């Protein structure tokens, strides 16, 4: 008996309050949206194979990259790790029976689906071509595509994200099991806690900004309209006040996954647990103070540029701390190289590049040359795809036995991890060079001397596509044919591994008591020895 088999029928899923079932619902839906976004990315790469806009007209191309951005950001990256892995595991990691607000959790999924369907509807009925940034006055006065419905979709998706974040914060504060003090929380929980703060405090600002854009587009209020005395840069401020912290919403949970995976597969406590935990919170806090580095060349005051550039340098430090702490977690460990670990190694390399190139862009001088080019495209794909997506896949593989009770096939998944890594570098590394050359982003056509690198990039994208399709195939296969996993296949220490797989609906038969340190592998050995003794 477990949460999957307890009840059957569609309604038992659609009306469930169980965080694990909602996580599965989320997992299916975000995978769906990921592949739609991925297909759009494929179209973009195909179009850029040649310098001319020949596969599609420029306006089609504009719609394609806009929808790619909106779907990937609001319907994949923001909910990816928190709403799936986080939803499934946070209550188990802190020894709770469920999230604090199960109905709100379900509501969050319904809002997400409503927003997603609205987004798809928008795409089918003509699309939108503002870019995911909705820059005014372009979005308010100059395009005649479906800005309103897209805005509504993003607005609703925002509330879905707010509810998820709110639920996590409340759960982490109020639902911890006996003995689970703050410094016994797994780092995944810390990371999601930090991301949740950003969701709760950042997203509403995006919501009101979209409302103002919609009002400006429909009845013509003048808050962002330079013709009426409004300031379009104010839109940029409000938009990036959310959308910069949003990148930390996307990456922080991924960092949490990496902490868990690296600790488990090197069988060692995370090096400098406190530093890693606090660096998550530091990123969340500093993340709110750096938004205007997206606007260095946009006409904000030069004094602001200096301040925001300096703060951006400060926010880069906690990320560096994390990378080195993970590296030293390996030191004197006992390392094995299962798929999640391979993805985690991929994450560390790619995130280091992504993070460092972020410093290029946060430095006000070089930002002038590199911003709005393919350099920035490459940078955020290194962080988001090379970082977050790798972490997501790492997490899905890591907790797949817990979620489904089945092991994924090890060899082919290791292959997939390597293919993804190679394909990724082929796709996005040339874009750094393109950006340095000055190739602007969001171009359907480009000067011919950029072609060679674009061909490399497109070729890499096809490899990357294979790398992403493989897990879907073998993970689905493993649901039926995978080896039975057992409760703790990785010999990991988290509370979630101390219960059965897949877990009971109420997670634990008996409310657990956290009587040992977090990542305490010696305690785990002791438990095993006790079990062996009792069997004898």
């Amino acid at each position, binding site marked *: 008996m477990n949460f999957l088999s307890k009840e059957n029928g569609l309604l038992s899923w659609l009306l469930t309050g169980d965080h694990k079932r909602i996580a599965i619902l989320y997992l299916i839906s975000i995978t769906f949206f990921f592949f739609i976004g991925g297909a759009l990315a494929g179209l973009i790469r195909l179009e850029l194979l040649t310098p001319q*806009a020949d596969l599609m007209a420029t306006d089609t191309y504009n719609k394609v990259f806009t929808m790619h951005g909106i779907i990937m950001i609001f319907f994949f990256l923001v909910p990816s790790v928190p709403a799936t892995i986080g939803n499934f595991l946070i209550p188990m990691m802190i020894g709770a029976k469920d999230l604090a607000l199960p109905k709100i959790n379900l509501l969050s999924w319904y809002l997400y689906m409503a927003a997603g369907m609205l987004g798809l509807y928008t795409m089918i009925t003509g699309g939108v071509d503002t870019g995911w940034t909705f820059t005014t006055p372009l979005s308010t006065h100059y395009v005649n595509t479906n800005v309103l419905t897209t805005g509504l979709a993003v607005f609703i998706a925002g509330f879905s994200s707010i509810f998820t974040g709110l639920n996590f914060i409340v759960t982490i504060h109020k639902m911890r099991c006996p003995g689970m003090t703050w410094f016994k929380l797994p780092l995944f929980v810390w990371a999601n806690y930090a991301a949740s703060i950003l969701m709760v405090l950042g997203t509403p600002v995006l919501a009101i900004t979209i409302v103002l854009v919609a009002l400006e587009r429909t009845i013509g209020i003048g808050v962002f309209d330079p013709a009426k005395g409004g300031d379009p840069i104010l839109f940029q401020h409000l938009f990036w006040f959310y959308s910069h912290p949003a990148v930390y919403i996307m990456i922080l949970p991924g960092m949490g996954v990496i902490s868990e995976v690296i600790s488990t597969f090197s069988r060692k406590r995370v090096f400098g647990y406190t530093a890693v935990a606090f660096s998550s919170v530091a990123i969340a806090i500093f993340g709110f103070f750096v938004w205007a580095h997206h606007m260095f060349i946009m006409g904000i005051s030069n004094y602001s540029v200096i301040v925001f550039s300096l703060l951006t340098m400060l926010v880069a430090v906690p990320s560096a701390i994390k990378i080195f*702490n993970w590296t030293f977690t390996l030191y004197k460990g006992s390392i094995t190289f299962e798929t999640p670990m391979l993805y985690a190694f991929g994450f560390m*390399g790619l995130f280091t590049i992504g993070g*460092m190139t972020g410093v290029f862009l946060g430095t006000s001088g070089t930002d002038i040359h590199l911003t*709005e080019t393919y350099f920035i495209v490459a940078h955020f794909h290194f962080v988001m795809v090379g970082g977050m997506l790798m972490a997501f896949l790492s997490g899905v593989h890591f907790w797949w036995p817990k979620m489904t009770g089945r092991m994924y096939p090890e060899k082919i998944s290791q292959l997939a991890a390597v293919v993804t890594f190679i394909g990724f570098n082929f796709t996005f590394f040339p874009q750094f060079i393109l950006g340095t050359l000055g190739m602007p982003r969001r171009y359907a056509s480009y000067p011919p001397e950029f072609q060679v690198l674009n061909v490399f990039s497109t070729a890499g994208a096809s490899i990357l596509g294979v790398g992403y399709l493989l897990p879907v195939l073998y993970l689905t296969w493993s649901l039926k044919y995978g080896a039975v996993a057992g409760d703790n296949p990785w010999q990991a220490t988290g509370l979630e591994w101390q219960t059965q797989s897949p877990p009971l609906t109420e997670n634990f038969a008996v409310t657990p008591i956290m009587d040992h340190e977090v990542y305490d592998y010696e305690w785990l050995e002791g438990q095993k020895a006790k079990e062996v003794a009792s069997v004898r």
Partner: protein
Amino acid sequence: MSHISPVLWQYLVKWMTDFALFPPEASKIAPQMDALYFFMVLVSLVGLTIVILLVTSFSILYNKERHPVAVQIEGSTLLEATWTIIPLGLFLIMFVWGALIYFRVYNPPANSMNIYVVGKQWMWKAEHPGGQHEINSLHVPTGRAIQLTLISQDVFHSFSIPAFRVKREAIPGRYTTVWFEPTVPGTYHLFCTQYCGTEHSHMIGEVVVMTPDDYKKWLAESTSGMSLAQNGERLFASLSCAACHNARPDARGPSLANVYGSKLALSNGGTVLADDAYLREAILNPSQHVTQGYSPIMPTYQGQVSEEGVISLVEYIKNLSSDYRVQQTTNTTDLLPEGEGKAMPAATAPVKPGMVKQ
């Protein structure tokens, strides 16, 4: 390679040799920015190498076969402090270095030559002070500081010249500036890098850098007959600006001679530097920028003058070093020097006695 068709072979060779890996450095700032760029590349490479080396060597040294039992280590304050402080120090160096370059790029020298650029969906229109217009191209001489004053007529655009390493957004309703000093003659890319709608990817052009002599020749060939300032003078007359801004003792508006670059005292008690942006504001929203000692009687010219028109007026006022010609304009329309075209008749507004200078 005999089995590859020679045509295809030639095509491939051309394709592979045409492609670029690093943009040309064609301005004075470019090598400075590249120095910082390569410094950061170096730091990144070192950082990445350290991480890769450590991960690889730990993976080899401490894999399960070789090292079956992990040694639990809590952490090390010293080590952690090291990798907090060293990156922070490096980032701060980058910050200071970057900020210095940022100062330079957006702080034009006083003697720079000013070219106005208007962005609109989907083209760049450059206005040289001599009255030469260009669309989607920009001709500039080497060895001279060129300041661009940018504005957009509709949405955000961004004026980017990768070979010069400069870029600036053209914002609707506000001037922005950037400057550069070209060093190497040649033709370079000009891009709009801020997404601006359907034909965004066609809003490209070229920057032609010429030797000063060639540039002079080009200027002479492409003259439209009237300089920007002359154009502005004509507008000044046709909008009857001189009805008030005529520097007479009873003038209802302040004299505009030498006003550019001066500090103006405003009637609300503040002072303001009369730069391009201010002049534009004062034409479009005059009641919010009343010079001390004058009544707020100037009407707004919003909607009556195009952005190009405002640019001409600003350029005219900038070059106004005496009131002589303004007074000429009000006295007669026939006294304009030759080559300036026929000025429109100055329709002087009826003077109301109650509205004279306070």
